[in-house]
């Protein structure tokens, strides 16, 4: 099992993601600089980590979405490789057009950093299978632009197709329909605002994030 964590200038959860994946799944993790034009061979999971890629210039994730490595990430996703964008990674996937919608400034204007309770809305995805029948999870959010937005038609489609994977129990940022995480139409690209990488063992307050990585590695 092999995972790759993409490092953009301004990423700050790249090491967290690597440690979380290694400790929760035993997978080997390679760090991939954003200027690379190839991903490690036989990679099972590509993670776009949290942070402030390119200083959030223009729009959060807008510049990173055009980084050279993103062509490879897109190609890997098309081949069925699991791709997970956490926080800034979610913003990048939306800016790259790999997930629908966009992340707006938080409705309360404040940067929100705290543990949040989540509903696992779809237990049958590559990212949630290890939750088995557990519908509750706790992970930490840390975002200023985590307010998920899409037009009503897109939101209806996401819900109708079971693509809303995580919802906030108590919405911290104004996200449409309490959405905290979605998958693409094929089900192998996840965007999630809360950090599984900050919740991979009980000492961190929750080990629920480990289940996300375990799910996806078990599906590989």
């Amino acid at each position, binding site marked *: 099992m092999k995972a790759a964590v993409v490092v953009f200038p301004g990423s700050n959860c790249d090491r967290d993601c690597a440690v979380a994946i290694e400790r929760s799944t035993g997978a080997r993790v390679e760090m991939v600089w954003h200027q690379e034009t190839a991903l490690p061979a036989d990679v099972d999971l590509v993670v776009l980590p949290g942070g402030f890629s390119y200083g959030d210039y*223009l*729009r959060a994730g*807008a510049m990173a979405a*055009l980084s050279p490595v993103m062509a490879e990430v897109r190609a890997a996703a098309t081949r069925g490789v699991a791709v997970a964008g956490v926080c800034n990674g979610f913003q990048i996937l*939306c*800016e790259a057009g790999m997930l*629908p*919608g*966009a992340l*707006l*400034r*938080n*409705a*309360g*204007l404040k940067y929100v950093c705290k543990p949040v309770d989540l509903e696992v809305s779809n237990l049958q995805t590559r990212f949630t299978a290890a939750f088995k029948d557990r519908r509750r999870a706790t992970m930490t959010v840390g975002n200023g632009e985590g307010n998920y*937005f*899409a*037009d009503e038609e897109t939101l209806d489609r996401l819900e109708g197709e079971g693509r809303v994977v995580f919802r906030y129990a108590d919405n911290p940022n*104004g996200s449409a329909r309490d959405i905290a995480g979605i998958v693409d139409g094929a089900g192998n690209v996840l965007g999630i605002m809360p950090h599984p990488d900050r919740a991979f063992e009980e000492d961190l307050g929750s080990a629920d994030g480990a289940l996300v990585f375990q799910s996806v590695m078990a599906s590989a």
Partner: protein
Amino acid sequence: MKATVQVFLKSGVLDVQGKAVEAALHGLGWTGVSHTRVGRIIAFDLAAADRAAAEAEVKAMCERLLANPVIESWRAEIDEA
């Protein structure tokens, strides 16, 4: 040519910065202020054959990068000076 692109959130998208600025203006006594929007301006020089070519290029730039069509609308001015 000189291009000036204005980008704002679409009218259907809640502009929380605009709301906060408006509340502050009201607090300072400018109670007649409404529909406040906060956007951004991107200005640059552009080498282009003529105005039509410049307009076409700027449109493509806005659609590809300068604005996010999911949440933003844009307006461009091209100055041939």
